[in-house]
């Protein structure tokens, strides 16, 4: 087929070369998977198929998310929000599992499916949500990198410049599998929040009590409570994760036979990310106990500085490093999510298996968005604090239409066949859409009518 196309025009020849490059790289990875399956080595098989789910979940434990969890711990201590965050990760798993099925069943990215099945009108609206959400989130990742750098004495242009360089350099790996493993190494450092939490000498009984009773909830329902609840939902389920994981599943080459491993690695990602999120709350709970006002803190390292006298300099340094890592990993995954969606929308090459010539639009979108986001952070006087707090709220609001499109696609028997959603998946998915829409509506009401909750 490639040779036939090549005879038609130079454009077709170019397509043929790109297709062959991509097919060969993906086929090489698939060959290894098939050999491992034949050899009946389940753990090695799981290792080979691990990546998209783990990176989506740990990528979402990003700069603004860690600030949200830190603000939660410092404002409410160990209580209601510990089981609440656990619940949000159950939600995240339910959502992301659908993307694994969609990717394995159709071998097409999320943006591509929305355009194909719903047409350009709904496609461009979904893309507008994604572009705005991703760009704003990417800016906040560089805020985290910059603030992390400042904690260690690096000037903003240096840390932001190095951060942008690492993100762009990761794209130069030119193989999906290599990129994935490189980002996974960085993502493992998300667990730095666990030793940081141990330095806070957590009360195990209080943690268990909070998990069992969803209490205490200091101050009851208030604007701050609703904003934090929204920010914590936005810290766990966001549109970029849907687009990223489905495209990564396709780029990695997962098939229907790989669904069990795809589900396990997504669940594993959710568990690891939930542990890091709860560890962040536990690590910052001493600020709540000491009555420190964190409302003017700009970023994670501000929390680290405030924590130093309470949990010691080692704990605080681990915390600051964790926030820096969170920003860096998320910058890599969000950039890739934007690039996948851009390539799929323009029907241009969209794979990390392509070289720069064949995937210039794909890599171009990633590089331009990285440089733009890094540039915004370096603007003197940019409202970094307000942006960081607002980004997760925006992500939550945009999640409702994104989830509806996901549910419709997952129910589409023409493309999904027997892998279409069952009644249980629809019940969970529908409940999540209603819950997210309701929390967003309550947020709108309490912002417009601040006296509504009586405080």
């Amino acid at each position, binding site marked *: *087929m490639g040779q036939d196309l090549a005879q038609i025009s130079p454009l077709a020849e170019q397509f043929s070369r790109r297709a062959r490059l991509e097919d060969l790289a993906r086929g090489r990875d698939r060959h290894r998977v098939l050999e491992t399956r034949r050899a009946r080595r389940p753990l090695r098989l799981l290792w080979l198929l691990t990546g998209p789910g783990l990176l989506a979940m740990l990528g979402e434990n990003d700069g603004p998310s860690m600030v949200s969890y830190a603000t939660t711990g410092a404002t409410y201590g160990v209580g209601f929000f510990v089981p609440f965050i656990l619940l949000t990760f159950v939600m995240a798993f339910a959502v992301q599992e659908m993307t694994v099925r969609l990717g394995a069943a159709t071998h097409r990215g999320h943006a591509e*499916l929305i355009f194909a099945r719903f047409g350009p009108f709904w496609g461009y609206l979904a893309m507008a949500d994604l572009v705005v959400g991703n760009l704003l989130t990417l800016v906040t990742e560089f805020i985290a990198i910059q603030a992390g750098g400042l904690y260690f004495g690096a000037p903003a242009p240096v840390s932001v410049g190095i951060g942008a360089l690492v993100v762009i350099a990761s794209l130069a790996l030119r193989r999906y599998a290599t990129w994935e493993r490189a980002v996974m190494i960085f993502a493992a450092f998300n667990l730095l929040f666990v030793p940081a939490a141990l330095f806070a000498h957590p009360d195990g009984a209080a943690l268990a009590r909070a998990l069992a009773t969803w209490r205490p909830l200091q101050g009851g329902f208030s604007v701050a409570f609703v904003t934090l609840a929204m920010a914590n939902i936005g810290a766990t389920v966001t549109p970029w994760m849907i687009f990223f994981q489905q495209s990564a599943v396709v780029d990695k080459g997962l098939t229907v036979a790989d669904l069990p491993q795809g589900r396990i690695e997504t669940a594993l990602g959710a568990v690891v990310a939930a542990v890091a999120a709860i560890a962040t709350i536990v690590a910052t709970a001493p600020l709540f106990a000491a009555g420190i006002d964190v409302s003017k803190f700009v970023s994670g390292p501000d929390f680290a500085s405030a924590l130093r006298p309470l949990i010691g300099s080692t704990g605080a340094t681990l915390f600051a490093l964790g926030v820096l890592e969170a920003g860096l990993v998320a910058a890599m995954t969000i950039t890739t999510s934007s690039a996948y969606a851009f390539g799929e929308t323009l029907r241009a090459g969209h794979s990390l298996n392509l070289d720069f010539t064949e995937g210039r639009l794909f890599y171009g979108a990633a590089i331009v968005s990285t440089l733009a986001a890094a540039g915004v952070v370096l603007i003197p006087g940019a409202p970094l604090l*307000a942006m960081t707090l*607002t980004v997760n709220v925006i992500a939550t609001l*945009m999640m409702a239409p994104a989830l509806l499109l996901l549910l419709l696609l997952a129910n589409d028997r023409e493309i999904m066949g027997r892998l279409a959603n069952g009644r249980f998946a629809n019940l969970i998915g529908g409940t999540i859409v209603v819950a997210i829409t309701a929390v967003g*509506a309550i947020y709108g009401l309490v912002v417009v009518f601040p006296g509504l909750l009586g405080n």
Partner: protein
Amino acid sequence: MSDQSRWLEALEPDQFVAATETPLPRRKLSRGVLVLLIALRIYVFITAPIVVYAFVRALLTP
């Protein structure tokens, strides 16, 4: 058989780039689905300015 042939054989037929270039047919949206899509779009258009308002208010608060 060469390595490259073996690798290409490991791919399912609909995994080849050429196969994924085939356009999928457009889905016919029912009235109920359209109402839901439009309702959530209106929801975003109403709530987004509220977030912008809250953002600006946070900036102006000393």
